[in-house]
């Protein structure tokens, strides 16, 4: 019995450690959707985003088609699930900015294109890959990103990012 209790304590503390480590990868996502014409279309996106795991709350600005998604702690969300969600509703992403920790964006799958000036605390970054910015912006950016070979490959496994205000 005593052993069992000890085991239980051990497992609990192990899980606690694990959750601290995974803590708050992305706390907030600000999405601007493109090509919308009506509140019914926004509602379709809203309902898709709401169905994602760990979504606590969504604030919507129907005039700018901005969706601010608040996520629960210790989520494993990445930008792709939000892109898939908006596209499933029939629309596209014009801008996607995530609020996360400096530690999260300093390693894979994120590739920061401007110099890292903070190493701790909360940061806001915009995803620059194709499908996360408008087609026009992507074309423009592709020219200035010629030295980043992988950027032009448009693979889904990494996310090129820059700091956002």
């Amino acid at each position, binding site marked *: 019995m005593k052993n069992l209790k000890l085991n239980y304590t051990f497992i609990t503390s192990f899980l606690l450690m694990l959750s601290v480590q995974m803590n708050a990868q992305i706390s907030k996502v600000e999405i*601007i959707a*493109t*090509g919308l*014409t*009506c*509140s*019914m279309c*926004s*509602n*379709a996106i*809203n*309902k*898709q985003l*709401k*169905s994602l795991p760990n979504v606590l709350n969504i604030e*919507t600005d*129907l*005039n700018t088609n901005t969706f601010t998604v608040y996520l629960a702690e210790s989520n494993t969300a990445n930008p792709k699930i939000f892109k898939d969600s908006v*596209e*499933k*509703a*029939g*629309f*596209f992403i*014009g801008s996607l900015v995530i609020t996360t920790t400096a530690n999260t964006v300093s390693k894979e799958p994120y590739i920061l294109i401007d110099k890292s000036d903070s190493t701790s605390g909360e940061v806001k970054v915009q995803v620059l890959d194709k499908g996360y910015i*408008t*087609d*026009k912006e992507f074309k423009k950016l592709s020219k200035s990103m010629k030295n980043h070979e992988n950027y032009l490959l448009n693979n889904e496994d990494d996310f090129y990012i820059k700091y956002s205000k």
Partner: protein
Amino acid sequence: MKKLILFFGIFIFQVNYSQELFVVTDPASNVPGNTLSVRLSNSLFKEKIGGDYNYHLMPEVTYGINKNLMIRATGFVSNRNLQLVTEGGSFYSKYRFFSTDDMNSHFRLAAFGRYSFNNADIHQETIEIMGHNSGFETGIVATKLIKKVAISSSLSFEKAMDNKPDYSFPSTQGDNATNYTLSIGKLMYPKKYTNFKQTNINLMVELVGQTINENGKSYLDVVPAIQFIINSQARIDLAYRHELISSMIRTAPNGMYFNLEYNFFNL
């Protein structure tokens, strides 16, 4: 009628937002993935001879399979033979194969196909597989949003077959046609959104035409419409269809549409 067109034309190019959820035609955009849309379309058309009214009821379900593909099933009920009878049904599918979106614009292309069966008598030269003829239709639709004005246009081929079991397609009539449509829509209210519960009011005007390929007989109709979107989930359409020109036999070209729709998002 000219005044009416001018009136709608002025409206459409003045205001800021647009709509593409048209009444008679379908835009290149689809129902969202995993969304079920249920519609009850009612139409009341006045017969040219006798002045009786034909009532058509079309219950319809549409489902978004994924972001690019949707399917639809429609039932046809009418009182053309004095009592309400189920005359047939229809299957429809639309695939969006091209999209380019920007902050305030989009351009989309989709291909569609429809197969219908109907057992009613064939009483006019117009080919209409939505509630009159058995047959199929296939075509493409392009929808463009420029500075928040939505314009949609479609081109399709439609072929009528025998209305089995009792009515063969008359051999004296052309059994296939080219259809063309042009639709413009505009959001009138609200000027500024505050929440999802606000009722949206849209004004639309659609031009719907057909040419029988064999003999060149044609018609062109105009369909002005007002639409209410309620709670960002339900839709009410009220439209009037009026024949502008026609060189073919049509039994009841002018009438009203009254549609009710409800969307179950993300099932």
